[in-house]
């Protein structure tokens, strides 16, 4: 009886969710249609203004409310106490740079920023070069690229299972890493608890996902190198390695830098992997995770905001570089 009732209420919930979803979409569509209907019937002179109102204003309003204004508010909150009530000066920043746990967090974030982009780009470049000469690279590329579609949470579970450790000696290992260690004659340990190894184990998960991105972008750049250049270097008798280091890499240098900076930004903001695999324990936490913990677990908006600002300052040089790069690119066109 009870089970039937539970099923019933589940069904009701499902119906109500789907209908609210449908209503939202219909209302939104009607709104857009209506705005167009009115606008197309106004005179040319009025349209000169109306077109900005309909096409540009919604995006600007959303960007202002969702990103620009909050950024200033976060800056403001970072100089105030836990509830945002009193001014505390630099106290939150002082806390961030003196508290031993947070220093660990900053150190880990630094490791992520250096290791993750270099490893992802390195693997991506290797695979791009290897598959460039293959006759049917499709399947290989798809398999390497597939993790990009998998969520960080899903990837976290996949790799947590790989790193699983069986503390009871009499039971067989079920984690692949432990088994491989045994096959190689090592004694497996509880990998995820071992500092600083665990941070690198988490970075592997991220690299596993980002390599596909690096591969696709670099592979397209390599394809764009004119065949004549490759041919000429072949005629000059350059070996495979020489061709790679003296021709391929310099030709795609710009793309490599874009890929590195994009992945660095991603590594700086990594949150889901840490939260799923260790919860930030065992000295594996990074800024994005600590920012969430301070803000929404410890409910300290002051320290949480300060960490968000530190994260922003870390990203800033990369953003500046990207903007400069884009300006140059547009100027060339």
């Amino acid at each position, binding site marked *: 009886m009870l089970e039937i009732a539970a099923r019933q209420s589940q069904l009701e919930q499902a119906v109500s969710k789907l209908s*609210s979803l449908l209503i939202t979409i219909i209302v939104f569509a009607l709104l857009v249609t209506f705005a167009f209907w009115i606008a197309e019937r106004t005179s040319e002179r009025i349209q000169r203004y109306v077109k900005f109102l309909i*096409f540009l204003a919604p995006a600007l309003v959303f960007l202002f409310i969702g990103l620009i204004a909050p950024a200033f508010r976060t800056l403001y909150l970072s100089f105030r106490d836990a509830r945002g009530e009193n001014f505390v000066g630099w106290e939150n920043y002082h806390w961030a740079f003196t508290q031993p746990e947070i220093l660990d967090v900053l150190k880990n974030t630094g490791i992520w920023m250096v290791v993750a982009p270099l490893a992802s780009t390195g693997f991506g470049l290797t695979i791009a070069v290897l598959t460039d*000469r293959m006759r049917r690279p499709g399947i290989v590329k798809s398999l390497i690229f597939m*993790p990009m*579609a998998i969520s960080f949470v899903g990837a976290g579970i*996949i790799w947590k299972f790989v790193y699983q450790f069986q503390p009871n000696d009499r039971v067989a290992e079920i984690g692949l890493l432990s088994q491989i260690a045994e096959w190689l004659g090592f004694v497996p340990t509880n990998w995820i608890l071992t500092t600083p190894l665990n941070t690198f184990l988490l970075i592997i998960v991220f690299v596993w996902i980002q390599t596909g991105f690096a591969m696709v972008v670099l592979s397209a750049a390599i394809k764009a190198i004119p*065949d004549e250049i490759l041919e000429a270097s072949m005629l000059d008798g350059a070996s495979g390695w020489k061709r790679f280091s003296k021709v391929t890499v310099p030709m795609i240098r710009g793309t490599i830098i874009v890929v590195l900076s994009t992945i660095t930004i*991603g590594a700086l903001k990594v949150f*889901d992997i840490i939260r799923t695999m260790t*919860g930030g324990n065992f000295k594996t936490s990074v800024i994005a995770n600590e920012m969430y913990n301070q803000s929404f677990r410890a409910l300290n908006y002051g320290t949480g905001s300060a960490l968000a600002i530190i994260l922003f300052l870390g990203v800033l040089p990369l953003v500046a570089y990207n903007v400069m790069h884009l300006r140059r690119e547009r100027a060339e066109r």
Partner: protein
Amino acid sequence: MISKFIAKGSRRTRELETVKVHLSSPWASSAAILLAVLWTIPTFGLFVTSFRPSTGINSSGWWNVFRNPEFTFENYSRVLFEGRGATPPLSQYFLNTFAIVIPSTIIPITIAIFAAYAIAWFDFRGRNFIFFAIFALQVIPLQMSLIPLLQLFSGGLHIGSVTLIPSFGITGTFIPIWLAHTMFGLPLAIFLLHNFIAQLPRELIEAARVDGADYFKLFRQIVLPLSIPAIASFAIFQFLWVWNDLLVALTFGGGKREIAPLMVRLAEMTGTRGGDWELLTAGAFVSILVPVAVFFALQRYFVRGLLAGSVKG
């Protein structure tokens, strides 16, 4: 003359082909295949494990299963349809994910295509500034917005005792999550779509203008239909991003089970039920299935989008 020219051309491509073939080495190919296999093993392990009975999972590694195969669908039926106390089964979270993903994809794309069109084809002062500002916003960590937006959604906006924006009582509904995804998705969407729309031939746009099409008709009849490929490639991005998101749903979902998506539940399960591998693996696979299917079906569009702009994170 012309045929001679063509013959020369084709001989040339043939020569280049031989260069390529000459370059393709069996060692490089084997190395690439080896890496691809390595890359797939962890996912494959999860896939195999999700079909094993729990006693098997916990007593032997999944690589042993091929010696005495024993498979079951029970993990899936348990995780999908059996709730536990106040916790609904995963099928409910699956539904929530859909309820979050669809508006969070449609709304930002609509608003973004409007803005991209305006920035690309309207003449106004500050056009370049707006374009660069939006590009820069793209990489600003959304952590910068979490606290203020949450405060706005739950309490409205007040200055002193004056209420500028009321709270609307939307906490605990899907609305804050939809709005947040819309706001965070806009910069990349506008940037990608702008790159595409700005490259539509100027003559086409001007001809339509001369024919008396106003900016609205122009958008409806020419720009929108031509932009479908760009829209498709961004739609895939946004879809995958929202489907796979944890942070936004966790922050703006207010901890309510009724609206929490798959990812929130899975992250919770790894914390509290970390040892129940039969449920975790099946649940994880359910959550992976849709994005991977979308990805394989629309890979071409996805890659095109990747190459057109940088990637949001």
